[in-house]
């Protein structure tokens, strides 16, 4: 157990998973199941028309980076993602706190927040474009509309989870509402918030990409859309690969901040 969780071993295991996935993908998309084995015709397990092949995808990705064409698009998408994440998370935190502390506000607006959360963003895209134009802001809005709700619900719950004794102690120590927020609610809701941030990093990116996909002139979503239009699955998968790698990087940053802000927690005893 202790051996298994050491850094290099862990990394090796992670690599193993990657190799396995890519291996399956490679075989499925390059080896034809001979005719008569399962069905009449010989066929691919993962038809390269829909799945491309890993070699082609890596080649394309490498080329995109080597020639540098992708940096511009990546930059735009990451900017949108970062903005969507920051604005959505900030909004979720602020409104979440506000709702949690003002019972009536929460009770009155509760159904409307839930309604808003259920609106399909894809349909709203034209309205975002109308209000915010075609620049990055309409994409940011789409990302915000995903991130906000995830963070909001978690912060709202996190604030309500504060230990009543600790809260009473804080009040008896004379804290004002603002000081309660800073010294009690905020640190107590932090774990909740970070849990939601891990989810919402991904959603911020999804929002940005889908926004680009629905209408734009640049960005990874735009590139994916272009590739889809000409059946260039390799291009589609290469775009998604780049997305996936970058979300890991952003998430790592979130984790570093999280560990910084939650040093005080007891380390949980290991499962086994």
């Amino acid at each position, binding site marked *: 157990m202790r051996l298994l969780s050491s850094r290099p071993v862990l990394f090796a295991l992670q690599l193993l998973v990657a190799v396995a996935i890519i291996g399956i993908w490679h075989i499925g998309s390059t080896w034809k199941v001979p005719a008569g084995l399962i069905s009449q015709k010989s066929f691919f397990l993962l038809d390269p028309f829909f799945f491309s092949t890993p070699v082609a995808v890596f080649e394309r990705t490498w080329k995109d980076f080597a020639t540098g064409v992708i940096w511009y698009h990546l930059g735009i998408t990451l900017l949108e993602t970062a903005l969507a994440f920051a604005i959505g998370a900030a909004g979720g935190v602020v409104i979440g706190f506000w709702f949690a502390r003002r019972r009536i506000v929460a009770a009155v607006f509760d159904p409307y927040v839930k309604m808003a959360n259920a609106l399909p963003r894809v349909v709203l895209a034209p309205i975002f*474009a109308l209000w915010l134009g*075609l620049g990055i802001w309409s994409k940011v809005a789409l990302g915000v509309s995903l991130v906000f709700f995830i963070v909001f619900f978690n912060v709202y719950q996190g604030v309500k989870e504060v230990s009543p004794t600790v809260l009473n102690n804080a009040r008896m120590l004379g804290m004002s509402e603002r000081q309660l927020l800073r010294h009690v609610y905020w640190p107590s809701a932090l774990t909740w918030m970070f849990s939601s941030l891990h989810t919402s990093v991904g959603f911020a990116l999804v929002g940005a990409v889908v926004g680009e996909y629905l209408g734009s002139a640049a960005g990874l979503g735009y590139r994916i859309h272009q590739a889809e239009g000409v059946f260039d699955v390799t291009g589609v998968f290469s775009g998604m690969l780049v997305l996936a790698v970058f979300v890991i990087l952003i998430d790592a940053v979130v984790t570093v901040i999280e560990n910084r802000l939650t040093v005080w927690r007891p380390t949980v005893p290991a499962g086994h």
Partner: protein
Amino acid sequence: AAQGAPALAQKAEKPTLTLGVGGKPLLYYLPLTIAERNGYFKEEGLDVTINDFGGGAKSLQALIGGSIDAVTGAYEHTIRMQAKGQDIVSVIELGRYPGIVLVVQKDKAAKYKSVADLKGAKVGVTAPGSSTNFFVNFLLAKQGLKPDDVSYIGVGGGASAVAQMKRGEIDAMANLDPVITKVESDGDAVVLADTRTEEGNQKIFGGANPAAVLYLKRDFVAANPVTTQKLTNAFYKSLKWLEKASPEDVAKVVPEEYLLGDKTLYLAAVKASKPTYSITGVIPEIGMKNALNMLVEFDPELKSATIDLPKTFDGTFVKKASETIK
């Protein structure tokens, strides 16, 4: 490319433009890509940003919302918008045939030999309410069938459509290139009705039926005649170039990415689509009527509206372009 056009003498009122399109790599919009890649916009002194949208409807909405200046989109939008009180005008025809093809699943070809057999079939269209949907409605009506006699399934215009044809989930499908060329070349489908060719259109519509056009808000055209002229010129040049070009020529001009999926497929699709591109840039009267008939038949909103067809197309700009560009 031609030069010495008098329009060049004047400066465009709005040299920096945003142009919308719903799926730029689609062959339906090939003239746009040609105009862009061959530098016709620059020649005209225009700086055009092309914004790609998830679909034609979204680019139209962006035009009306004011975030873009011009759209390359379906001609029928100009008719619909008239019914909705939005003043939109097309200035040059880019595609003279819709390019929509109705195919049936290979294994079911024996069962569905003609449109009349489709009763009770599952028919894939790019989207409910789209022109592919209306096209099938129209074909059915000619056989005395109603839209309710088949069940429509939206399958999109990309890989999903191919997937459904392969899976055999749908019996028939109305779609555009390159989906059609793909399913044809893979041997998954058999053509029932084809509007990519002259004779096909003759048979189905009794003449042309405009597809892609360049349309703008009438206000914009009135306020920026020179800009509009220059835009029209660029597209006109593009049509002239396409008239003479071979599929290989096209492949050389379009962005490399367009070929990355499958070059032979692309060439085949271009070849199949070539007849659909407009030659004169002018929408013939019969074309307008055909388009309107198709819509009126199945859209209750349009049925009650009175459409002033000549208002949908302003031919003065193409005329001027054809005079100056040889």
